[in-house]
Each structure stands twice: as structure tokens, then as C-alpha cells.
């Protein structure tokens, strides 16, 4: 698929989107980890405070330590939790172990006024302890409850949270990225839809449909200037094209009167070899100008090809008007095929020109005593067949091209006749084909679409 190409706008945008997602995700996860770390610290401190409060509460009522002992006996405290309760003078009222209470006293933690403290390298094996001090009122007077736990357990907590996140939530991150990318690519693709439509419109513009322009409806505002500029360029091209077309038509038109003068003047001269050659030259020039005019007309006019017309009447008209020329050249011409009207949609005048062109060719190239046959097919066709030498196989692909000449042939025409025929047929949705005449010679066949085929 073309839109998956590495250079495409979509892939570029998608890559950038992906990179942006990665960076954002990394920053977000980093921030999250940092905050979690911080939170873990405060959580563990909070936890110690809770313990100290609980202990203080147990003593508060009666100033005795029975309930505390009960709690501890029930395994209420974690294994490594150390605690000590002091009176206002720093005397130890109750403690998990003497080593801890001594250490707390030795470091003057109570008098420092801090609510939390650290005990590095304490106990066996030596560990770093994190602790809190909680001053409470009780029956035994003002007491200080000190609780500490090895820092290790804080790290454990943090790790626990982290693993929780990783296991339960982190798998979602790549999936989320992939989904976002997919949505992003689809959105871009959808957004570029008008561009593809514009490309299709541009691809359909042909020299014979110069008036077509690219649509600007629903176009993204970023693309609109480009399309408008292209349309502007097409406008200028069309007017240039039009000018040239008009020039051809006018030039050919203006040539007619002088050509008529030359034709007449040469005809007025007394016959000799040079004059008869001049006559041929002028005849050739007349034909060329005629065909140029015809091409210019075909290029510039929108032909009405939607009128009912009778192919047989057209063929009859052509045979009638061309018969004197054929007979003057010692040839015969005949109309065969359909005996009744064969109706197709088309422009009678232009189809007549096409058939006349083919008959003219047959008269020029026929070189035979066998008649030129103009046949009207009931299915909507006109064939012009002769018994001349036919067209060489290697030439058949080119005979309908503009200005094409057989290399070996001494040029007598402009090479436009068959090209004109071809173009007229195209405008009718019809075809012009060369076929071998069974038994020798050429057949040029014009086939028109039937009423059913036209509807499709």
C-alpha cells in the first residue's frame, strides 16, 4: 500500500507521534516512580506514627503496661519493630530492649525536638533504623513513645508497590502506545482523504477535457492554497491551449481564400507537365488545410453526439457524392448491407466526414478494378473495403496516429485523415478498426454502440 511508504506524510507524522509518545511516557513513568518513592517514605513514617499512637493509647487510660504486653504477645508488632517509652525526665518506662532505649537516650533524640530520626548501624546484624518520637499525655504523666523499624522494610514496601504497578499496570503502557499510534495513523489517513480525492481528480484531467478543475469542497485549509494554485495554473494552461487552438483554426481559415485563388489560377493555366504537377501540389495543400481545420474543430467543439441518425442514409450520401470521383479514376463503388434504416446516436455530419475519409483513402490506395464496397451492418457498423494491397502488419498499429506516414510511401496526404476518423469515433463511444478483407485488401470498420451499450 502506497500510504505505508516510508516517505509518506502519514508515516512521517506517525513516527513523530510515536517518538512523542515514548518521551511523554518515559517522563510520566519517571515522575510516577519519584513520587512513589517519596510517598513510600512518608507512608513508612506514617506507619510508625500509627504504631506509636496505638501504644500511647494503650497506656493512656491507666498508666500501666499490661495492655501493651498483651498486644505484643498477640504479635501485633512486626518482628523488627523496636520501641521504647520514656517519662518526662528521660527515664525508660517500657521498651522492647535495653540496647534500643539506651541508644535513644544516648543520642538525646528526645530533647532534639525532631519528630523523626535515623539510627545508623544499630543492632545485630547492624542495620539502619528509621524512627519516630511521639509525645503523649497519659495517666503516668507526659510520656514519649519512640518507635523504629529497620529501613529495609521501607525499601520492601516501595518494591512491593513498584512490582504491583509493573505487574498490574505497566503492560498497559505499550498497548496504550500501540493503540494511540493506530488511532493517530487512522486519523491522519482520514484527514488526508481529500488529498487522495484531489489526486484522483488531477489524474483524470486530459487534453480533451481541459475545462476540468480540482474540487475545493471540504478541502483542509492547509491543502487549499496548493489546490487553488494548481487550478490557477490549469486556467493559464487552458487559455494558452485555447489560444493555440484558435490560432490553428484561424490560420487554416485565413488560408482558404488565398488557396482558392491559387487553385483557380493554376486551373486557368494551359495544360503542361509543370502545371499538372503544380495542380497536384495545390490539391495536396488544400487537403492538408482542410484536415487541419477539421482537427481544430474537433479539438474545440463539444460535439453533439446524441441525435438519432441513420447510418444507411449517411453511407448512401457518401457513396453518392464520392461515386463521380471513383468513376473518374476508373473505379467502381457500391453500397451493400442493410436495406433499411440503421439508427444510432451520433452526429451525422461528422460520421459522414469519417466515412468520406475512408472512401477517399480507398480510392487513392485501392488500385483495383474490383469495386470499393461500403457496407452498412444492421448491428450498427459501416465498413469500407477495397481490394488494394492492404496495410502491412507492422504498420497497422500506427495508421490511426496523427501525422503518421508509411516510411516507404511518397506522402500524398497530411497523415491526418485516419486520426480524425479515430477521434470522431472516440467522441461517439464507437471504434475504428483495421481488418483484413477476406480474399485480399483492406477493410476499415466503424462500429457504433447499440442503444443498450450506450446506457451502460
Amino acid at each position, binding site marked *: 500500500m502506497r500510504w505505508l511508504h516510508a516517505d509518506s506524510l502519514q508515516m512521517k507524522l506517525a513516527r513523530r507521534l510515536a517518538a512523542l509518545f515514548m518521551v511523554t511516557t518515559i517522563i510520566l513513568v519517571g515522575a510516577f516512580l519519584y513520587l512513589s518513592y517519596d510517598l513510600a517514605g512518608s507512608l513508612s513514617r506514617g506507619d510508625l506514627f500509627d504504631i506509636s499512637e496505638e501504644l500511647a493509647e494503650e497506656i493512656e487510660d491507666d498508666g500501666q503496661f499490661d495492655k501493651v504486653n498483651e498486644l505484643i504477645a498477640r504479635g501485633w508488632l512486626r518482628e523488627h519493630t523496636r520501641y521504647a517509652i520514656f517519662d518526662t525526665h528521660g527515664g525508660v518506662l517500657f521498651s522492647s530492649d535495653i540496647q534500643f532505649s539506651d541508644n535513644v537516650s544516648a543520642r538525646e533524640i528526645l530533647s532534639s525536638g525532631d519528630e523523626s530520626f535515623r539510627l545508623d548501624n544499630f543492632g545485630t546484624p547492624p542495620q539502619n533504623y528509621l524512627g519516630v518520637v511521639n509525645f503523649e499525655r497519659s495517666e503516668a504523666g507526659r510520656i514519649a513513645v519512640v518507635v523504629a523499624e529497620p529501613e529495609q522494610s521501607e525499601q520492601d514496601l516501595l518494591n512491593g508497590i513498584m512490582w504491583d504497578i509493573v505487574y498490574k499496570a505497566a503492560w498497559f503502557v505499550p498497548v496504550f502506545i500501540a493503540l494511540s499510534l493506530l488511532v493517530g495513523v487512522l486519523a491522519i489517513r482520514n484527514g488526508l482523504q481529500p488529498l487522495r480525492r484531489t489526486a484522483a481528480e488531477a489524474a483524470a484531467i486530459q487534453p480533451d477535457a481541459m475545462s476540468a478543475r480540482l474540487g475545493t469542497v471540504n478541502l483542509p485549509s492547509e491543502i487549499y492554497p496548493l489546490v487553488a494554485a494548481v487550478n490557477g495554473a490549469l486556467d493559464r494552461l487552458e487559455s494558452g491551449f485555447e489560444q493555440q487552438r484558435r490560432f490553428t483554426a484561424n490560420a487554416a*481559415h485565413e488560408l*482558404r*481564400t488565398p*488557396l*482558392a*485563388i*491559387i*487553385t*483557380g*489560377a493554376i*486551373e*486557368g493555366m494551359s495544360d503542361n507537365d509543370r502545371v499538372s504537377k503544380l495542380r497536384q501540389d495545390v490539391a495536396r495543400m*488544400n487537403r492538408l*488545410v482542410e484536415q487541419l*481545420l477539421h482537427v481544430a*474543430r474537433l479539438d474545440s467543439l463539444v460535439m453533439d453526439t446524441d441525435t438519432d441518425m441513420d447510418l444507411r442514409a449517411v453511407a*448512401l450520401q457518401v*457513396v*453518392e*457524392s464520392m*461515386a*463521380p470521383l471513383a*468513376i*473518374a479514376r476508373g473505379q*467502381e*463503388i*457500391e*453500397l*451493400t448491407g442493410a436495406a433499411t434504416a440503421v439508427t444510432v446516436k451520433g452526429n451525422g*455530419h461528422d460520421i459522414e466526414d469519417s466515412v468520406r475519409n475512408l472512401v477517399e483513402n480507398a480510392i487513392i490506395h485501392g488500385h483495383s478494378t474490383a*469495386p470499393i464496397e*461500403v457496407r452498412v451492418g444492421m448491428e450498427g457498423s459501416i465498413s469500407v473495403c477495397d481490394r488494394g494491397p492492404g496495410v502491412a502488419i507492422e504498420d497497422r498499429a500506427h495508421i490511426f496516429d496523427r501525422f503518421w506516414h508509411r516510411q516507404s510511401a511518397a506522402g500524398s496526404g497530411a497523415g491526418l485523415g485516419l486520426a480524425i476518423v479515430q477521434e470522431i469515433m472516440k467522441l461517439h463511444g464507437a471504434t475504428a478498426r483495421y481488418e483484413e478483407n477476406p480474399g485480399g485488401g483492406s477493410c476499415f470498420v466503424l462500429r457504433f454502440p447499440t442503444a443498450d451499450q450506450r446506457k451502460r
Partner: protein
Amino acid sequence: MRLLVVEDDVRLSEVLVENLQKSGFVADAVHYACQAHGALQNIAYDAVILDRGLPDGDGLELLQQIRTCGSNVPILILTARDAVEDRVAGLDNGADDYLVKPFATEELVSRLKALLRRPGGALGRRLVAGNVILDTIGRDIQIDNRPVELSRREISVLEHLMRRLGRVVPKELLEEKLYGFGEELESNAVPVHVHHLRRKLERARATASIHTVRGVGYLLTEDS
């Protein structure tokens, strides 16, 4: 026979007049529509050759004026425009024929003669093709100055062929002209008449011959 050429291009009208004179016509040339009016009032021309693009108006306007005045003079239009609408416009406005520039003098002369050979035309009474002469009033034929006996229908076929000398006469037209409404028409009636006529022309050594354009009609040409 006297022709009027109405053509604004001086050089073209010169050449036209010269060539028409060589073909046996007498031709006068004018370059403006107003001159044409004057000329037509003073001289009874046998035919008019009229260019469409004139400096003081379209040839079509002049054409309409001539017809409005009740003149039936045959008029052949010359035009540099070959669009169908232009051709039709010319014929609709009362022209008898048209030719698109450039044209061969031979074609112009043969068209003019065809117009003049129409009944009532300058050449319409005594038709000539090669050594064949047909008097349309007396209904008699001379070939090589000798009278030839032809049937009524053979004369009718020959007359139509001679009026359209060098051009194809459709078979249907001959059928229409030869047989009235009530008359029984056999499918090969016209071919049979043509066949007999052709044999009689050959026997009398006529220098005009009938060609068959199968599927279309017949054509009389002068032998060169």
C-alpha cells in the same frame, strides 16, 4: 450564359471570372452587396455566385433580398465556413447550392451547369452530354447528330441523368419520377430501363456512358 460573381476578394474574383470565361460563360464581378443589387436590376443573369463574407453585409442578407424580390435566379453560395449550421443557413435562405473554399473550378462549373440544367434554367431546355442531345420540350434525342428512337420511360431516365450529369441519380428518385402513384412497379423496372438505355447509347456510339453505383443509383458521365 451570363453569370454574376459577388466576391469581395478582388484577386479571387479576377481568377474566377477568368476561369468561368474559359469554361464558356460570360461573367461580371462586383465586390459589394450594393453593387450586386444594381447589377441584378439591370441585367438578367442566368446564375449568381455569391460570397458570404462581404464588406457591406452578409451574403445571406443579399440572398434573402433577391428572393424577396421574386427572382428565381439560381444562386450558388461560396463560403469559407464549413460548419453544418452555415451550410444549412445558406440553403434555408434560398440558395440552390453551396461550395466551401477552396474549390476546384471543375467542381464549380459542374455545379453551375447542374443548376442551369434544371427545368427553367438556361440549359434546361436542350440538354447536352458528349454527343448526346436531348430536347426536353420535343422529347427527341440526337446522338452524333442522328435521331435515336427511345421509349417514353427511357427518355425520362436519360433526362434525369442528363440534368444531373456527372452526379449520382438515386434509384429511388428515378422510381418516383417514372411511375405514378397507382402504377404497378416491379422491383427491377428501373434497372431494366437503364440496361436497355445503356445498350442503345452504346450502339449509337454515344460519347456519354451510364455507370451503376450498386445500392445507390446511376450516373452519366461524358467520356474523356
